[in-house]
């Protein structure tokens, strides 16, 4: 059967059939030998339960049987019963308590059930206490297995509920962490036979563990040590390192109660340690490495548990970084001699990168908790940076290093310039197509915005570069930019940013071309038939593309040749990346304008209005793109003018020029309509005292000419009739202007009468729909009759501010509560 059929079957099963199935299963579970059929039925039961949205309650006898299975010797049955029970409503507290009490027999699958069925914080606290107790009371050589799952279970609870552990528990576990991390055995575990790593008798002389490159480990055990088999404490070493960062982060803020050392003492200690650590010469003896890390360990015996753990974490990470360095060097040598790399080696290489990330992050945690550690840590971080920074394949490790520099560079008085250059200039420019790096880098930015603005304010300059992530994979990172954008808009960047956002689809196309031109040899370019690729390679257009691909703000300016660029990229209009990118631009523009309205001064806003007018006709020709952008422009033109009405008078020259161009009626209808509206609305002495009669008259004449032109002839070939909204907006604007300068009333009245006469004859060339024409004429007649009483017309068409923003509700005399109170009193007195 196909999966789909199974699925539908399990959702539509009948209740009676189900009851039969349950009772058959109970019978099966009563048998001594649980065979294939039982396993198969349990799988089916799990499917039935999990495929349904709503929980089904199992019959109690079946549930009892399943609970018993949790401690079955066969793991598959434990797994299945745990999985089935997880899909049912929680069992009664008693049953769960029974499982929990027997913590020594608890297995990983039963623990998973307990965690997932916990009904309250108290349940979890109890479970935590039991587990910690189990860890603590266990003799080190007892029967094992359960220890290894205890830590992950604890961690999974603590993640969501850190207060489940008492201060005492935290101290106990911190001590345990120290033991596992720093003092795991350095000889290989018993034979690697299945099921018993730890229990097998050691028949031969224990061998020391090895480093990944095969040499004998010269220092304490870490996750990068290998052997034929592993001892329990070596497993715990792996588990505790895997949890270490979480642990430090979770209990970082809780103060350690019995800490007696003050900061000055700690500082002194750390200085003396850093001194002993700084002569970092490794001595190689018989191929084994004795690192200097362990040489510093004796001093920390006296520390309280949490600080001791910090110290050990520090040592562990230092050793990991050393180990990675050694193998990286060895790897480079191998690569140089071109030895083939095995799959195993590959997975370990990846592991080493992950280890370096973790080590740097843990060191960061340690230093955040105890700033005196910064001086001891920085030398190795610096060394790591200088080794890795030239190779971009280590970019993912360099990000946590950058975080370290950001957090601690100031204390250590380290120059961070080169770090920011790398992260904000090289990474986006060369790795824009790495989705993981994009995700992490943008998260780094989001989480550190305040800190970056303080310590690395120059990052704003790299804005065009950062936008490459958005241009390349807009749907994946648009969320990040929605969050970031408001902080990136400043007075200095606003204008360039607007242009950059509008040209984002061009950037997207250029990035595609950049990658293609790198991957295709020049001779093949023409065979692909991409004109834009040829253009990309053509030295004559190099400057244009370089401008789009610029790393920093303010380098170059090509607005004059933008239309050339759009022509060159015309064929990119249907590339999926470009189309997706064009879809996110309007969203970001809205955010941009909302922010700009709050940060910018009048002069800048005036400039932005000009840019809008200019760019409304200068966009990459993607279907729907222009229309969407025009919609955004219109919306924000209106908002900006409403916010600062004097902008209209300031920019009246440019606005009139735009409104006087008849072609705009057809190609930029939306923007045009709004420009006309703001002119009609805000070109009045009440909005700005500088507004003169001459200005009103010149505006009137400009609009009148356009209205006359579009209503006296058919639209130019290739365009449709102007929308009725444009015509009525023009009419209203004219009427408004006329109401402010009464000399103009006869002229507009004349137009309205002509309009009525023209419409009486039936159809006109400039309006295809009869209903539309009727609506236009009606509107004209309304305005006409209004203008017959100029005084009324003025107060209707340009109402005074107190009418526009009524505040009656604030007037207590008129307020509803007062009226209600009066009424109540009246009714009650009767």
């Amino acid at each position, binding site marked *: 059967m196909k999966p789909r059929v199974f699925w539908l079957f399990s959702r539509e099963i009948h209740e009676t059939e189900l009851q039969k199935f349950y009772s058959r299963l109970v019978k099966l579970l009563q048998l001594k030998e649980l065979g294939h059929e039982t*396993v198969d039925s349990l799988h089916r039961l*799990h499917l039935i339960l999990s495929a349904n949205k709503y929980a089904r309650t199992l019959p109690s006898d079946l549930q009892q049987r399943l609970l018993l299975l949790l401690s079955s010797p066969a793991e598959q049955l434990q797994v299945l019963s745990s999985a089935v029970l997880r899909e049912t409503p929680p069992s009664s507290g008693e049953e769960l308590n029974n499982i929990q009490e027997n913590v020594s027999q608890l297995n990983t699958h039963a623990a998973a059930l307990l*965690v997932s069925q916990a009904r309250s914080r108290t349940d979890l606290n109890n479970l935590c206490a039991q587990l910690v107790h189990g860890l603590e009371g266990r003799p080190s050589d007892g029967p094992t297995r359960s220890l290894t799952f205890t830590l992950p279970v604890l961690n999974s609870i603590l993640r969501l509920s850190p207060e489940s552990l008492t201060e005492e528990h935290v101290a106990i576990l911190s001590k345990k962490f120290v033991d596992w991390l720093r003092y795991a055995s350095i000889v290989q575990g018993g034979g690697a036979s299945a099921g018993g790593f730890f229990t097998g008798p050691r028949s031969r002389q224990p061998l020391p563990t090895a480093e990944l490159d095969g040499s004998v480990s010269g220092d304490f055990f870490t996750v990068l040590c290998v052997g034929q088999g*592993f001892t329990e404490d070596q497993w715990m070493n792996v588990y505790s390192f895997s949890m270490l960062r979480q642990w430090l982060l979770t209990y970082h803020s809780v103060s350690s109660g019995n800490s007696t050392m003050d900061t000055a003492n700690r500082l002194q200690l750390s200085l003396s340690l850093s001194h002993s650590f700084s002569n970092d010469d490794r001595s190689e003896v018989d191929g084994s490495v004795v690192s200097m890390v362990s040489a510093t360990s004796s001093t920390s015996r006296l520390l309280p548990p949490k600080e001791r753990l910090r110290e050990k974490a520090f040592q562990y990470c230092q050793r990991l970084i050393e180990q990675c360095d050694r193998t990286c060097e060895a790897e480079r040598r191998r690569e140089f001699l071109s030895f083939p790399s095995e799959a195993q080696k590959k997975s370990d290489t990846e*592991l080493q990168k992950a280890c370096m990330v973790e080590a740097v992050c843990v060191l960061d945690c340690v230093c955040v908790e105890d700033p005196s550690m910064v001086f001891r840590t920085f030398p190795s971080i610096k060394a790591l940076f200088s080794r890795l920074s030239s190779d971009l394949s280590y970019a993912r490790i360099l990000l946590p290093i950058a975080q370290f520099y950001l957090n601690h560079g100031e204390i250590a008085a380290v120059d961070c310039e080169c770090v920011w250059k790398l992260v904000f200039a090289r990474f986006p420019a060369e790795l824009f197509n790495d989705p*993981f790096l994009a995700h992490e880098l943008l998260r780094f930015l989001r989480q550190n915005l305040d800190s970056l603005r303080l310590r690395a304010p120059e990052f704003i300059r790299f804005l065009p570069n950062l936008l490459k992530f958005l241009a390349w994979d807009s749907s*994946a990172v648009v969320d990040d930019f929605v969050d970031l954008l408001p902080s990136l808009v400043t007075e200095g960047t606003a204008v360039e940013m607007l242009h950059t956002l509008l040209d984002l689809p061009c950037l997207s196309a250029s990035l595609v071309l950049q990658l293609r031109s790198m991957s295709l040899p020049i001779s093949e370019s023409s065979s692909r038939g991409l004109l834009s690729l040829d253009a990309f390679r053509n030295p004559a257009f190099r400057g244009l593309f370089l401008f789009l691909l610029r790393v920093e703000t303010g380098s170059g300016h090509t607005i004059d040749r933008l239309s050339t660029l759009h022509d060159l990229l015309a064929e990119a209009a249907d590339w999926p990346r470009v189309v997706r990118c064009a879809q996110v631009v309007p969203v970001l523009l809205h955010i941009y304008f909302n922010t700009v309205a709050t940060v910018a001064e009048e002069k800048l806003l005036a400039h932005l209005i000009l840019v809008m007018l200019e760019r409304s006709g200068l966009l990459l020709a993607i279907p729907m793109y222009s229309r969407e952008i025009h919609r955004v422009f219109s919306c924000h033109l209106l908002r900006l003018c409403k916010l600062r009405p004097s902008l209209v008078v300031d920019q009246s020259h440019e606005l009139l020029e735009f409104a006087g161009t008849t072609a705009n009626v057809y190609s930029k209808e939306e923007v045009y309509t709004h420009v006309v509206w703001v002119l009609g609305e805000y070109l009045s002495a009440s909005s700005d005292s500088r507004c003169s009669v001459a200005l009103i008259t010149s505006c009137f004449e400009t609009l009148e000419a356009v209205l006359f032109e579009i209503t006296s002839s058919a639209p130019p070939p290739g365009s449709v009739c102007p929308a009725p909204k444009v015509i009525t907006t023009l009419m209203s604007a004219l009427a408004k202007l006329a109401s402010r300068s009464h000399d103009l009333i006869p002229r507009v009245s004349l137009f309205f009468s002509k309009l009525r006469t023209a419409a009486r004859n039936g159809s006109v060339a400039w309006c295809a729909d009869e209903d539309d024409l009727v609506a236009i004429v009606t509107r004209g007649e309304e305005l006409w009759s209004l203008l017959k009483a100029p005084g009324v017309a003025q107060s209707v068409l340009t109402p005074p501010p107190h009418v526009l923003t009524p505040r009656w509700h604030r007037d207590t005399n008129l307020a509803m509560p007062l009226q209600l109170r009066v009424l109540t009193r009246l009714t009650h007195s009767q």
Partner: protein
Amino acid sequence: MVRCFLIHTVSPVGALSAGESRVLYSRLFGPDEAVLSKQPREFTPEERRLLQKEKVSVVARRVQSAVSLSREASGRQPVDAAPGEEALVLQDADSGVVRLRAGDPFSEEMSVLWLGVQSLGFTLVCEPHDNLLLAEGILRNLTRHCLDSLHMLGQGSEVLLKSSRIDILLSRLLPHGQLLFLNHRFTQSLEKEVASSMAK
């Protein structure tokens, strides 16, 4: 800590509408967020279960659209592969990461790693502090094992009726959602353990 591992469809299937994804396997780790939330009203177990199921399907849908967008953008559509070509298919798999905002659907922000193999999505929901580089390697390894042991390429997929195999796999390679730093020796011994446990 990983919050959730799931296997789901990423191409249109049967009766589902285009944007939907069918979850073939899902495993949530750790206690239920809703139990610990400081909501004014406590959820009933029934509501909590429904919430969890919805969370999983939100993730599946988000990943499905991410996979299809990524395939559309790169212009690569998966070619049909036969059983036996698992390694090859895995090598060609699309991969990426999706950000889930806090509250949508998990209470904290999450990073969702995904691998798109043919019509299947393999997805890990990771917490903000998780080591994504490590998680990627683990996701790849888990996916390889799932493809191998459940014969997920081709028609006779056993994912729905052999879910215990995935549970056993997860209990070793991703115990309770914990990402582990395992070198190849540790991985080998765990894999042996998994194999013997499945064979019993």
